[in-house]
């Protein structure tokens, strides 16, 4: 059974569709890159999948883990194993990263009917994960994303992902705003979490991330649709030629 199965998905804000019919099947163990020009609907797809209340699906179906995704609240989706790394991570003043992650982890354990994690076990887990994604322990103590630099926020998303161990991660431009070293570290962190059991959707504008996190498939989104899919070479081709030829192809197809 596919981990995620999107069929004919449409949706957007209020009375305006931004996603105009998407079909996408993702199996465990796969990494799918989604590329496409600004404003093509990549982040909107992520938000609809994660359940943002401002966005609504207007057609199609999505099954996640065999369940009807739209029957699930955002937190149920998360606790079923979905994770959205935000293009613009949100600041949560006054709540330390570590405190928050423990709360999130416990919600997950509760959802699965497992006992809460002890303080000691959590500390050990946190230390292990900080090491894995090369996270500054100071950032784990500070309030979530508050006054973090742009790059630190992105790294924090990967840190959250490492702690929560999702089965489906949607990484929305996690590479943008990172310096060259940070990009390598983040890519390493992502790769560390790649297993045969989980899958990732990597939204990016740059081939560079895909040099490290090598995708199984590359999709191009344009005007709320996936207009082209291919293997990893497609990303190289886009890097070289830009999106103009895609536009032309779409228009030619009418």
């Amino acid at each position, binding site marked *: 059974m596919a981990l995620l199965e999107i069929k004919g998905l449409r949706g957007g804000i209020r009375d305006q569709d931004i996603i105009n019919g998407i079909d996408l099947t993702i199996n465990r163990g796969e990494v799918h890159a989604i590329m496409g020009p600004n404003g093509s609907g990549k982040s909107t797809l992520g938000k609809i999948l994660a359940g943002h*209340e*401002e966005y609504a699906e207007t057609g199609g179906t999505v099954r996640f883990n065999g369940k009807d995704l739209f029957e699930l*609240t955002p*937190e149920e989706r*998360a606790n079923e194993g*979905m*994770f959205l790394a935000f293009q613009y991570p949100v600041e949560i003043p006054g709540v330390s990263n570590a405190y*928050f992650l423990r709360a999130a982890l416990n919600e997950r354990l509760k959802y699965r009917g497992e006992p809460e994690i002890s303080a000691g076990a959590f500390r050990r887990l946190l230390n292990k994960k900080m090491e894995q994604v090369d996270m500054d322990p100071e950032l784990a103590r500070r309030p979530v994303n508050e006054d973090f630099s742009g790059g630190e926020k992105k790294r924090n998303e990967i840190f959250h992902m490492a702690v929560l161990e999702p089965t489906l991660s949607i990484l929305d431009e996690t590479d943008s705003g990172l310096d060259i070293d940070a990009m390598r570290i983040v890519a390493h962190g992502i790769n560390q979490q790649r297993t045969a059991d989980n899958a990732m959707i990597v939204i990016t504008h740059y081939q560079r991330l895909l040099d490290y996190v090598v995708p199984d498939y590359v999709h191009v989104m344009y005007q709320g649709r996936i207009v082209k899919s291919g293997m990893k070479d497609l990303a190289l081709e886009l890097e070289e030629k830009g999106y103009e030829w895609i536009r032309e192809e779409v228009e030619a197809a009418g």
Partner: protein
Amino acid sequence: MTEALKQVSTDRYASFHEAYDRIRGREAPLWLHRIRSDAMKRFGELGMPVARELSFPLKEDWVYTDLRKIADTSYYAEPVEAELDETALAPYEFGQNGWHRLVFVNGIYSSALSRVTDLPRGVVVSSLADALVEHPDLVHPHLARYADFERTGLTALNSALLEDGLFVYAPHGGILETPVHVHYVTTGHKTLMATQPRTLIVGGDGANLKVVESYSGLTEQSYLTNAVTEIAVGRDGHAEHYRINREGAGAAHLSTTQLRLEENGRISTFNMSMGGALTRNDTNARLAGEHAVVRMNGLYLAAGDQHVDNHTAIDHAVPNCDSYEVYKGILEGRSRGVFNGKVFVHQDAQETDAKQLNKNLMLSPDAMIHTKPQLEIYADQVKCTHGATVGQLDEDQIFYLRTRGLSHDSACNLLTYGFAADLIRRLGIDAVRSSLDTLFETTIRDLSMARDQSVR
């Protein structure tokens, strides 16, 4: 005031007059008799501050908090004996075992529930009634010297009926490492009880004191607490003061806290209000010596029909003093909040640094807040800033937390916690910090449970 009105107001406060007559009949030093009789006389003139009966400028202080119902209630003003054991107090316990603790039940000192352990030389921690017998020379120069009963009816009432409360004294250089916790408890043994707790905290030059003052109600019934606290430290003196209001659901909690600082003195006070049907705190500081620093912080949480009013006043009387004030409010249900922050900078109080901030988080569309800075600055070389915000929980923040698996309610609770957590995190004493942190978290959870129930 017309004669007719005066007549009404005397009858209105008949039980307070009776209590006064009883107290006056007891043996006491002449100076104390004098305080009580002057205060009673003044209370006779002022009565309770009921806005519609006041004239400018007093009226201004009471526009949003209506004490009419309280003024018209005939309270039972005598102390009420009640047996309490540790288990009844357990949910309201605070701090650590080693702390000095004084417990007053319905205005009566409970020696069974209180304990004062080893004290440094010259330091006094006792009930005020005991101190009046054993150390009148220490009490006399300070009692009723800072909280002026000529100015307000509530302080006059408390001073007229003052019998007991906490007395803490540290002489020149006296350092009280172990915090003192005074616990004023009201039980449901009598309806419509009124108590007048009085707290006096005095530190000499270079003294250092830590006091937690808490008010708890073990009943849902109506009752009145009218408390006055005076805190004065000498040159280079330090005091840390925490005030926690966990009054019962039917309570009216009226309080005046008066701080006085001399040269280089430091007082930090933190006021946490969550109990009571109606709360009004007046927290005032007078910076009387140069280079003194006062920190005046507060946190108020209200739900249902609760009303919570914090009036603060900082009086920069001399140059080179700093005042830092942050008050945060969390308002749920149909609750009402009031914040009025007065900063008065005298003409020669140059180089004053005064910062004030009031932030409010509205968890319900039916809650309301009146917030007002009131800066009166007569010096020209000063730094005075103030800010007030009123906001709601942010949908993007809620969504972010939900994508990490937190339920909508947990997300709201966590954000509410985060809204004010910085105030608690900054507190000086570890044990106070962790106790308040836990209390704050539980209160937020209770607020959200109250919300869920009211929705159903």
